[in-house]
């Protein structure tokens, strides 16, 4: 098997595609690239299938060495990248020769980078996807949900060097620095919790350090919650739940599929990619978006 050898696995690098679809009724979550926007551009740059396997690099530190001749592209966070001793840009393709070493520094803005290789990174599919979900022990190179490790091989084919391509700067990620305004499609129990919903939209929050691909916990003044008994029900991507202590949690790509806390609605999908680039400590506020507005915006953004 030829490809790229992992010399240093970095902080936390995961093989991802668009995620698992159609298996929620078995309790299997979606997984998949957290920032689908940057992931999509990485594959497009390499002329890959839109579901091809990429590496999601959290913060940085990854070093890989090529055994093949091919083309790669990196998108997402602002991060220093070197091919051998030369500093290179992201949001464009690079030709790679056997023996080339690609080293990532640490993100200076945003926190997730996507590395695509022409033809896609190959791995056996589990439930129709190679997405790594650590919590479920599914997917990835080992199929057991493990992050990249030293010595792993990112299997891919050799590819002829084609024309270089780049993404125009106006389409690069923009990173939120001040308070990020995140749009929420109101739904689920928001009518029964109208007082709490009002308070939620009027509050500034900070992303807690205790946040990951499963969910972002938010810190802020606690919302007073009545005692409530609820039967567990299906959880959509981006659902905002209020736990008994009155703190919101945004449930993300590795979320549990069912749960029994009240929810006020779900983060608009185009804003989930923005959340993926935010680190603990980032300030957030929320703005309601009606279902009509949300579906209209989605129609407009359709390829």
């Amino acid at each position: 098997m030829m490809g790229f050898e992992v010399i240093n696995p970095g902080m936390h690098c995961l093989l991802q595609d668009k995620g698992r679809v159609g298996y929620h009724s078995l309790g299997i979550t979606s997984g998949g690239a957290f920032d689908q926007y940057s992931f999509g551009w990485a594959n497009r740059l390499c002329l890959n299938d839109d579901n091809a396997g990429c590496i999601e690099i959290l913060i940085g530190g990854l070093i890989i060495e090529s055994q093949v001749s091919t083309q790669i592209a990196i998108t997402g966070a602002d991060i220093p990248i070197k091919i051998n001793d030369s500093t290179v840009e992201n949001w464009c393709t690079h030709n790679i020769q056997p023996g080339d070493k690609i080293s990532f520094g640490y993100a200076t803005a945003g926190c997730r980078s996507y590395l695509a290789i022409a033809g896609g990174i190959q791995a056996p599919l589990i439930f129709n996807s190679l997405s790594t979900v650590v919590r479920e022990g599914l997917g990835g190179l080992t199929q057991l949900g493990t992050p990249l490790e030293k010595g792993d091989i990112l299997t891919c084919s050799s590819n002829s060097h084609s024309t270089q391509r780049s993404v125009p700067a106006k389409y690069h990620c923009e990173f939120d620095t001040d308070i990020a305004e995140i749009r929420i499609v109101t739904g689920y129990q928001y009518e029964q919790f109208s007082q709490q919903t009002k308070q939620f939209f009027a509050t500034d929050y900070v992303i807690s350090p205790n946040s990951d691909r499963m969910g972002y916990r938010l810190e802020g003044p606690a919302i007073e919650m009545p005692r409530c008994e609820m039967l567990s029900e299906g959880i959509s991507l981006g659902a905002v739940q209020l736990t008994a202590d009155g703190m919101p949690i945004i449930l993300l790509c590795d979320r549990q599929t069912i749960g029994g806390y009240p929810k006020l609605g779900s983060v608009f999908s185009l804003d989930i990619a923005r959340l993926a680039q935010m680190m603990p400590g980032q300030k957030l506020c929320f703005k309601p978006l009606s279902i009509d507005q949300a579906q209209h915006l989605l129609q407009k953004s359709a390829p």
Partner: protein
Amino acid sequence: MSIEYPKIVIASENSSIVYFSERPCDRTSDQISFTANTLKDRLGLDLIDLIPSYHSLLVIYNPQRFGYQKIEQEIRDTIAQWTASNQSRKGRKVELPVYYNPESGPDLQSIADHSDLSIDEVIELHQQTEYTVYAMGFAPGFAYLGEVDERIAMPRLATPRHNVPQGAVAIADRQTAIYPSQSPGGWNLIGLCPISLFNADKQPHSPMQVGDKLRFKSISRDEFMQLGGSEQSLLGEIT
């Protein structure tokens, strides 16, 4: 305030949740199974995923193809086709073996104390009920079953265990379940099931699905070992 069922509520830009009744019951479980199966046929690839649960069904769809009003109409038309007599798919009946013993179920004694019953009576009450598979979640293959006889209902442990073995049969309030893989857990452990409950690479992935009816059958330690039960899960793995 009375609510009219089915009640359909927006969950996100590409999903709506249908509530079928106030409380779960056999009729609701059957309506959920019927609606899920019929929507799969009606919507084909425009249906992204479905999450059935106790009294609800989350319908996730392709918003590039359907607006939320159109989906609501599809759901209402589907439910209107349901009748108690032409049930699409009766839940199958599944039986799973369990080795009930204090060495495999370290909380049997505390449930017996709590309910003022003997351990044998607790076991008898657990295996004489036919349970409904209400939902799957928490972990792949983890099935929420209900409802246990109220005499053996038992609140969750104050402090969850770090390590519950694969196959552990457990009770929390009036729910019961089997842990499909080793994991942390706060339910009360009463026995071990030697049958694998989740296979990523084999069909079917799980011996049961939402809507099925399940019974437990008490087996001996020898039978447990013959069916593939592991000595390890009996010895000191529970922490």
